[in-house]
């Protein structure tokens, strides 16, 4: 089995070596302080100009371009909400066939599909699973702002427990309408696709450069690969845009967002939240967002308990929610 060390890729060492040129550039309709814009800018900066990109319907589609104007320098195409996986297959398969048949130059072209948590984690899960079973070189990035942010913030399968959204408003009778625990997408995909060589979680701004290098690594390892990014959303999470980079860091340090990469089945925690001392209280994260303003202590305690379990009891902490095998007599 390959080890991480065996994988050679053009790693960016130090912020001063980050490529200066942009391939997703100024003049998009994103919110002030949009972390997903940073994610988008980052992944294509890391991937470089010999890339083709699809973007699933979602806030980063609608926010991204306004007709006849585009912030993209590399070729980009819209794809349907649940079609990130299939669009990646289509691009990669088309390019492979054309190269093999000598219809285009034989060079490496990155095929990257970008989707949100609603499109990727809910509707598009089956298509992404299909893509991860192929042997095409493709990268699917699911930016997770924990909501359907294009329709003014509705809960998705990845919304944090207790959060207020327009589908889950605190009411006179029921305080918490968002009772679902966050879906563990990267972990489920890793466990479910043994031949997939690279799956990671990341955050565009924390630790600095971690995301850029995960993208580089995914593209270097090749085959179908998947990265789940945690993207704080000032609009839907209700915090002032100037703190966007802090929220991601707090979510990771509180243990709510496990940060790891899995290379050929080997797990590396890129922020190791297993030791209790390396985790800050979840409330340090929750209390900075308006979407949790209605929570009371017992709600916060519940979230803390679930997070503790995730790190202290899971067979593979933060990734596989199994608590071990019972001894049979």
């Amino acid at each position, binding site marked *: 089995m390959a080890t991480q060390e065996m994988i050679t890729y053009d790693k960016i060492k130090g*912020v*001063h070596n*980050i490529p*200066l*040129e*942009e*391939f*997703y*550039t*100024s*003049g*998009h*309709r*994103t*919110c*002030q*302080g*949009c*972390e997903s*814009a*940073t994610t988008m*800018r980052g992944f294509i900066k890391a991937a470089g*100009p010999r890339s083709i990109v699809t973007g699933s319907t979602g*806030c980063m589609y609608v*926010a991204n371009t*306004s*007709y*006849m*104007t*585009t*912030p*993209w*320098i590399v*070729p*980009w195409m819209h794809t349907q909400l649940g079609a990130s996986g299939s669009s990646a297959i289509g691009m990669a398969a088309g390019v492979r066939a054309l190269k093999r048949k000598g219809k285009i130059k034989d060079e490496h072209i990155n095929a990257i599909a970008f989707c949100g948590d609603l499109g990727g984690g809910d509707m598009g899960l089956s298509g992404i699973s299909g893509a991860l079973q192929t042997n095409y070189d493709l990268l699917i990035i699911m930016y997770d702002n924990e909501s359907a942010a*294009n*329709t*003014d*913030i509705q809960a998705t399968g990845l919304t944090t427990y207790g959060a*207020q959204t327009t589908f889950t408003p605190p009411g006179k009778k029921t305080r918490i309408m968002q009772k679902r625990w966050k879906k563990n997408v990267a972990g489920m995909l890793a466990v479910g696709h043994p031949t997939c060589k690279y799956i990671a979680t990341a955050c565009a*701004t924390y630790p*600095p450069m971690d995301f850029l290098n995960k993208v580089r690594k995914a593209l270097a390892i090749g085959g179908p690969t998947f990265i789940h990014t945690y993207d704080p959303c*000032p*609009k*839907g999470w*209700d*915090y*002032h*845009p*100037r*703190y*966007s*980079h*802090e929220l991601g860091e707090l979510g990771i340090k509180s243990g709510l967002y496990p940060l790891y990469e899995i290379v050929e089945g080997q797990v590396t925690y890129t922020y190791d939240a297993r030791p209790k001392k390396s985790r800050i209280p979840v409330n340090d994260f929750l*209390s*900075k*967002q*308006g*979407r949790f*303003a209605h929570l009371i202590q017992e709600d916060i305690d519940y979230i803390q308990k679930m997070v503790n379990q995730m790190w202290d009891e899971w067979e593979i902490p933060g990734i596989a929610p199994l608590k071990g095998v019972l001894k049979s007599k």
Partner: protein
Amino acid sequence: MIKRVEINYRGIFQKSLAKKIGSDIVIIASRMGRVGMSNGRYSDAPERNGIPCKYFAFITHDLAEEELEAEAGAKLDIDECDLSVVLDDTMCKGVEPWGWHGIRPINEKVSNGSTLLVVSKHDHAELLDFVGSKTFDWKLATYDGEPSLAGLWVNKDDLTHERTLGAIAAADPDIIGIEAVEKYLNEKNPKEPHRAQAARKAYDEVLEKTKAIKPGMGVKWQHQVPVLPKWKEFNEGSAVPAVKRGFKLGPLGQQRNPQFQRGTTKTQRPVVRFDLCTKCTLCWLECPDECFDPTDDGLYDIAYSYCVGCGKCADICPVKECIVMVDELQFENDASPWTAYKKDRGAYADWAEKKKSKGRYIHPYITGRGLEYVKGEVVPLDGKRGSSRR
């Protein structure tokens, strides 16, 4: 007769406020026996943080509701208005809702003899340094206040809502009358007379702070309205040309989307003390709008015309007083600050400190919780670098 009211607001930060004002205009007018309706400019949704948006209210004394709907309701935007309310005075620098609308003067829709009503701490003269001139007489009215920014879930109850209703009554009683406003607010909040009082106070304020503006007063508007091509004049298959690839060090060295700059999204802009910069790259690296232009000396210039003023750079900058967010109305243009710094470091530092000294505030984590005023510290040219870490 139809009274058209447009309420200009800052995306999601003011969406609830604008909608509440628009709705109350209709309710109050209908209690006065008038007919009304309200709606938002649909193409603004989903409103992004900070993006200039519009909410409308339409009132008539003599038309049937259906006729009002046909005249006003069935439109995506209005051709002209009888009152234009501005909930954040930095929008006086112009508004650019979406791509291909262009940067438009805030008073574009204000018709002959009508009023532009701005909540602001600035006086008329300061606002007229930015507002476009017109060929006819119109009115500029102000009432004192901060831009009332809130979030999606935690809203800010600073009486801007009530005060705006009072201000509207003063600007044009044919829309709503002040007594009706007071009656409505008192009925709605029997235990909170201060709300109706706030409305009355703003009413009196506007009566005295309304100024007749003559043709030609204000600035000559530089930005053109983009011309939309005919169906035969652009590619089929929904394919649009990408931004041309290109990068070089220095001001505007990075190619950007030329048709949608959206610098009008900002309420504050970052002022940089280049002499204090440690070249840590974080402002450039974490800017969500790719606004920082790397230069040959390792500093980062700012393309202000693309900056939306999120404030991330100021928050992430490790050096105290190096990047500070400053009220957008203090700036006349989007010229390259790095170029000015290279020309005369001393003069630039003085200029930066002068800008920084006025109205320093930051927002708490949850926007709706109000502003925190902070005292700036004047650092001399090449002065000692302090850490900004809280």
